[in-house]
């Protein structure tokens, strides 16, 4: 077989295997590059916390925390809804305490979770729904459960995930993120749980794509030379 024919044949047959995936790769890549990652992350959905100093008088002393939370490992004093709270980490998990009274606030009730979500949401929309999840949905699959899921009115269905143990905003999602996650699945070819960038399918297909591109380059050498000859002949 002559070289140009071999180049054409290999390029054609490799392309038969990878063409559809190549379209998926480029289109998903186009989405991921065109929509800025800060928008995907939903930075604009969250209000920057006001830096107001904490009044230290009359607060529960750190020395007392070990009595409130046995097995204390670490504690953080911060403001939630304007009030000072301790977020503590113990051997048996995390918990939230009112820093003035020492009352345990966790696990948060629905009203407490709604209030925190509302205070952190940067847009005007009201809360559509709030529910306590015990089984992780795909969009927060790496986060420990349970979580309060609070969905808002507004463009792209903005959703906050609040930890019932710490009162923190663990995650924020909206439809642009969900679309990103969907096209990411096509990009890394993990059609199962969208996480494994080292799956066998992508390892095989990427090298086939390399070969397709390389044989395409090989084919270019003949494609352009032949055309010049045709022009000369015509002239």
């Amino acid at each position, binding site marked *: 077989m002559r070289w140009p024919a071999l180049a054409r044949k290999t390029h*054609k047959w490799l*392309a*038969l295997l990878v*063409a*559809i995936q*190549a*379209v998926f*790769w*480029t*289109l998903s*890549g*186009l989405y*991921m*590059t*065109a*929509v*800025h*990652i800060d928008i995907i992350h939903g930075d604009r959905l969250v209000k920057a916390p006001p*830096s*107001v*100093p*904490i009044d*230290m*008088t009359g*607060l529960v*002393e*750190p*020395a007392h*925390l*070990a009595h409130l939370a046995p097995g*204390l*490992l*670490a*504690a*953080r*004093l*911060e403001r939630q809804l304007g009030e000072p709270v301790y977020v503590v980490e113990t051997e048996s998990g995390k918990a939230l305490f009112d820093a003035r009274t020492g009352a345990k606030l966790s696990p948060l009730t629905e009203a407490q979770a709604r209030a925190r979500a509302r205070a952190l949401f940067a847009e005007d929309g009201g809360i559509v729904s709030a529910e306590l999840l015990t089984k992780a949905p795909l969009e927060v699959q790496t986060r420990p459960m349970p979580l309060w899921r609070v969905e808002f009115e507004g463009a792209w269905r903005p959703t906050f995930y609040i930890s019932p143990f710490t009162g923190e905003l663990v995650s924020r999602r909206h439809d642009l993120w969900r679309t990103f996650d969907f096209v990411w699945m096509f990009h*890394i070819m993990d059609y199962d749980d969208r996480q494994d*960038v*080292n*799956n066998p399918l*992508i*390892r095989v297909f*990427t*090298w086939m*794509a*390399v070969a*397709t*591109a*390389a044989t*395409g*380059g090989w084919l*270019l050498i003949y*494609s*352009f030379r032949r055309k010049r000859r045709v022009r000369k002949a015509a002239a």
Partner: protein
Amino acid sequence: MFLIRWLHKWFGLVLGLQFLLWAASGAVMALLDHHQVSAEHAILPVARIEAPAQPLPLAALSETVGAPILKLQFKPLFDTYVYEVTTAAGVQVLEATRGTPIPIDAAKAKALAVARYSGAEPVRSVERVDRPTLETRDLALPVWRVEFSDKDRTTLLVSATTGEVLGAKNDTWRLWDIAWMLHIMDYQERQSFNHPLIVTVAVGAAWLALSGLILLFRSFRRGDFAWILDPWERLAARRRARRPTARAGAHGAPQSASEDAG
């Protein structure tokens, strides 16, 4: 179809190299195990130590800090409990019972890194990083760069303000990072994949792939699949030929012929 072939060729000529680089860098990133790339196994969890029974009271702490406190943490830092205090001026780390400042100098950073390093190899170098580098681009500076003398040149990055181990890098990551740079076409900082160059080239590459897909329909003829279709059709023909004769013995030819047509 001629136009699509012409476009495919010219898009291939202009963008083919980047397409090849995307495929090759993607292949490299798919091959490098992401657990190894993240170097997560190089960092041990924080060791548990006894919390002091009498940490400094809040009033005394406020006085020591001397500025309004925005956030306060009480936590172990290697071998002692500390207060990590955030004020408008920044972050201070104080020993939790006496309130004495703990400066995160080279020696302290080295000790903190060794305590969290999962390997047994000794430290090769300790350097302070004040300006963004490829290894520290996602971290709050300044940091201490503590490199160990293992095969993978594992490097722990220790915050020079809080003493926390912020992350680890190794040679697998350094190789991955070159592929990442080629993949996202950000050759300076290797950070952003949202810039006009990559969006433009991605549009072209999408057309390159799509036009290639369209051309496939034109490029293949029946003869290309003869190796699979010919034996298949021979087999089907043989079965067709065998069926009427087998049935002809039992029911007669006309009936089986009508069955065949149905």
